């Protein structure tokens, strides 16, 4: 599965559990407009760490927070080789 698909399917799952309705997901969707609140993002990052084995935001302290889903995917893609 591509990183983008992994992240989007995990977002669907978190939304379902947290009873949040999610906007249609696309690369340029601004994360804060997605229907997720910060707790949902915190859960998403934890779930992705379980799945991928790393959390890009704690690997490097200077990782800036992403604005869009596309940014989020790139943060994970960029961190993946370093963690592997």
């Amino acid at each position, binding site marked *: 599965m591509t990183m983008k698909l992994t992240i989007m399917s995990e977002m669907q799952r978190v939304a379902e*559990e947290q009873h949040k309705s999610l906007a249609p997901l696309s690369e340029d969707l601004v994360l804060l407009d997605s229907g997720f609140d910060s707790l949902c993002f915190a859960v998403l990052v934890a779930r992705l760490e379980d799945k991928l084995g790393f959390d890009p935001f704690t690997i490097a302290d200077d990782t800036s927070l992403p604005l869009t889903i596309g940014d989020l995917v790139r943060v994970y893609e960029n961190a993946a080789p370093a963690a592997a």
Partner: protein
Amino acid sequence: MPHRPLRDWLNEPANGGERFLHGRSASVALADLRDGSSLGGDLAALDGACVLVLTRDQLTAALALIELDGVARRMILCPADFAREHLPVVIAKAGVDAIVTDDDTHDLHTLGVPLHVTCTPAIAPDAATQPGSRQTEWILFTSGTTGIPKMVVHTVESLTSAIKPGPRRDARIVWATFYDIRRYGGLQILLRAVLDGGSLVLSDAAEPLAEHLARLGALGATHVTGTPSHWRRVLMRPEAHAMAPGYVRLSGEIADQAVLDNLHALYPQARVVHAFASTEAGVGFEVADAREGVPAGTIDDPGNGAKLKVEDGSLRISSPGNASRYLGDGDLPLAAPDGFVDTNDMMELRDGRYYFVGRRGRIVNVGGLKVHPEEVEAIINRHPAVRVSLVHPRRNAITGSVVVADVVLREHVDADAEGLRREIVELCIGQLARHKVPASVRFVPSLAFSASGKLARHYA
């Protein structure tokens, strides 16, 4: 009340036969200790001494404690796992001038303590050794802390304040504890056995649980005590059926409904009681209605001479069972000026019952909101497939921390891991505020326990 040394209680008659202290490899008839000694004729040399009781075996420790109360000025109770590297500091702080030991494998002579006395379970008749009348200080180490444990000062009076020996002392009661008797919870059971008439089966850190349970069965243990973690391990052993206690007691950790129900199902004939006590504050209360939490009426009046209150969220105890002070470090008092000792165990009142929610120092901050790991564990443990869980913080870039759960499933659970994970999360969502729901649930084969029989919480 006049001071009564522990050994004097051995002269009280008890109905129903001989009483014993049972170690793993030896047993001692308590009657033999009335006019005999485990200390090889050296008890007189320990008169007024400050004694480090440092034995491998709990039986020799129990014998030494009974003999030394009233004789020694002070005795320091070292549990089996006590870290040897802390001994020089302890010896200096407490002013130790004698060591009682059964351990010839360690070179204790390098510690610079002038007097060494050997303690054995072979009791030698010694008519000269009568109970002393000194008010001996009993020094216990606090559990669950890192670094050098604090030393807490008790006396036999404070340690036994919650024990009310009945008029019909019954020698047929066989006490047993999974605790080390050199820790508060285990020491309570040794003292109960001595005061209340009865025998005691001691545990041994090196003994496999299956063998220990078989031994409890063979010796007919009737009153068995331990932490909820001890009991969860018992629930996981087929040998749990080797014994049939009439009284099961849990203390030292939060007893959740699941562990109470499971014990009731395992031992339907037993009274299942959970209790609160701490090394510093002493015995708080016990709950006998087989439900988790504490009736508010019990906090108002626990019926054991202690005064309890919940203030600023935490349980506070004022009682003759309070320890008097910490030893060393300026002898800091334990109680606040109002006479209450803060247990730092946090409680919440819901529908006329108080529930423990966790330790003050263990609160996790999720985006500015508080979570007690234990309140989340209590919900997860309700799931029928779950044996035990450990909730702990994980660093998170968005909320600072999230809580995550490590879960041990019951044996014979068909693990559709993803389905179970969802069920557990759903259960938590239904019962807890959103920030308390574990962000991640992992299934693990087992969880680590500390030497004091509690879930190891290394994150704290």
